[in-house]
């Protein structure tokens, strides 16, 4: 059975300026043991997609459509209570900025152990009424280590496994005493404590140095292999996708515009947006002088037209592109793209051109998002 099968997921944000369609008819699958990447610029809707799957989107955001089948169960139909059982337990999530994503007033050990305790991994060490209540903030209690020793020990062990040195000492410390890399490792530990079947990692290494990033991704891959986990990796870094993912989905303006195996998509990108992205990566091998930017701006997602969203910026746009939102067209076995070009007869513009806009056949390390500058 497919671990995760998302179909037609749509999420909107109702703002004063209008309704922003942040996620638009998204289809995705992740199999056990597989790593699927979602790649796109900031604002393309990648993070919102992940949050929508887990029911973590708050008003003014609303998930309006679609099914999210996890192990056969539709999460959108699940009660909040059921979702709480699944979150952290069957599906783990790692977020982008570890300094902001860890609670500053609780020790790291407490936060990791909590994940185990909330899902009752060790009998008798669950959350009691005092902890759940307001009073718990004022009543001094024995340290976490003494109150729930098994969970604590397990948390320490997890910290060791993700590569945090001296975990016994570190567990008693607070997040601000950790470096960025270690904070992220702690977050991963926290997500893996209950041995989830699926791990969703939202830009897990964006805030980190390149060397740390490499270490973390490696460790993540090891852990995944050990546990047979499925991983949904959200990132704007094409290099990371090439290094770690089996399959990839490209997002633009809330839609998946191309999806397939990493080899297929990177060797032979089928959607003009993907092609331009790969083009925009500076590559020493190509030896060309100038970077190729994509003209125009990302649309603002309010009142989107009933046409291909990328058309205004697409060098191959023509009348057919404006006749409605393009469906996923099959480009190969398990490779689809939302582009009318694949419905039409004749050669594709880039094939006709010959070496027109070449794609990356081997890995690169460019990034799509220019906000943080080039790496």
């Amino acid at each position, binding site marked *: 059975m497919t671990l995760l099968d998302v179909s037609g997921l749509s999420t909107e944000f109702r703002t004063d300026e209008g309704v922003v369609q942040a996620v638009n008819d998204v289809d995705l699958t992740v199999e056990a043991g597989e790593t699927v990447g979602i790649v796109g610029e900031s604002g393309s809707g990648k993070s919102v997609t992940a*949050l929508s799957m*887990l029911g*973590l989107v708050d008003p003014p955001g609303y998930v309006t459509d679609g099914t999210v089948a996890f192990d056969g169960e539709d999460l959108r139909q699940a009660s909040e209570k059921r*979702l*709480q*059982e*699944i*979150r*952290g*337990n069957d599906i783990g*999530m790692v*977020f982008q*900025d570890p300094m*902001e*994503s*860890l*609670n*500053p*007033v*609780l020790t790291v050990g407490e936060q990791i152990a*909590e*994940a185990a305790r*909330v*899902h009752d991994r060790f009998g008798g060490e669950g*959350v009691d009424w005092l*902890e*759940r*209540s*307001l009073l*718990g*903030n004022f009543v001094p209690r024995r340290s976490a280590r003494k109150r729930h020793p098994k969970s604590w020990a397990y948390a320490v062990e997890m910290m060791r496994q993700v590569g945090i040195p001296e975990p016994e000492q570190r567990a008693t410390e*607070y997040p*601000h005493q950790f470096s960025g890399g270690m904070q992220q490792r702690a*977050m991963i530990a*926290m997500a893996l404590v209950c041995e989830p079947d699926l791990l969703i990692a939202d830009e897990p290494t964006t805030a980190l140095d390149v060397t740390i990033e490499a270490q973390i991704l490696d460790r993540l891959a090891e852990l995944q292999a050990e546990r047979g986990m499925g991983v949904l990796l959200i990132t704007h870094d094409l290099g990371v996708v090439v290094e770690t993912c089996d399959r990839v989905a490209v997002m633009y303006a809330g839609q998946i515009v191309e999806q397939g195996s990493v080899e297929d998509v990177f060797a032979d990108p089928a959607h003009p947006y993907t092609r331009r992205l790969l083009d925009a990566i500076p590559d020493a091998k190509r030896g060309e002088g100038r970077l190729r930017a994509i003209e125009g701006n990302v649309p603002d997602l309010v009142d989107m037209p009933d046409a291909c969203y990328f058309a205004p910026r697409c060098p191959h746009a023509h009348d057919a592109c404006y006749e409605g939102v393009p469906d996923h067209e099959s480009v190969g076995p398990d490779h689809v793209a939302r582009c009318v070009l694949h419905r039409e007869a004749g050669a594709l513009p880039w094939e006709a051109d010959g070496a027109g806009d070449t794609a990356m056949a081997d890995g690169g390390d460019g990034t799509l998002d220019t906000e943080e500058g080039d790496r």
Partner: protein
Amino acid sequence: MGYGAYVLKRVLLIGPILFGVSLISFGALELLPGGPVEAAFGTRANPELVEQLREQYGLNRPFHVRYLDWVGDIVLNQDFGQTIRTERDVSTLLATSLPPTIWLAASGALVSVFIGIPAGIVSAVNHYEPEDYLATFLAFLGLSIPNFFLGLVLILVFSLYVPIFPSSGFVSPLEDPVEGVRTLVLPALTVGTAISAVVMRMMRSSLLEVFSEEYIRTARAKGLTRALVTNKHAVKNALIPTVTVVGLNFGYLLGGVVIVEQIFAIPGIGRLTLTAILTREYRVLQGSLLVIALLFALVNLATDLLYAYLDPRIKYD
């Protein structure tokens, strides 16, 4: 430096502050028109008697001599002087007036915390819904109702119409717990209500801020129930600026204490100071202002220490 060293450093800093206050309170009172003796006895006083008293109290000596004399007496002998009219020991007066005020101020602060914090939480969790509007409106009401009016109304309802609590007097809870608490209830409510409004609004706004933080999203993604996320993860962070608000509003609290001591006839420092001002008992006034300043400094200190204790990110230098 560690927490302990930080505490010590802050305690030592109180000295200079007290020095400044003593100088001001001693000096300012020398501005009393005519001089303390005349002011105490009014214009009816016999000029010869006045002059005699001035000599007796050493009021004709230069300022710095008088000041040092006063400070010296306090530091070395714990002697704050005598009252002019009745020649009673000021230090005794101060010593007996301090405990009721401390009990009142502390219980007022407690009331404000016990009302304000839950109200703020309810408001934030249900924000923009009816509970929020109700709580916010009540907070406005609490801020707007003059504490002397509130005191009178409370006396009217809970003391006269439905005699549950006494309308005046003070009994130390240390001597008689039940009676002590009973006498404190109405005064504490009167003092604490306005502050609880401030606390509630602070709690509400800082909790709303915390709710939009990333670590709350992490907590939810771990599968924590909403109650646990709110009470354990969010509140703890929002408490930090909120409890300091209580400390910051201590001036407000103390002002309220002055009036409440009048209404409920509690023999505290507030009432003592008020009487001293009205009867021009300058020695009493100088002493009580010093004590009040000390109280202020200690409360500020406690607030800072509490803040440092609650927030593990604070560095102690």
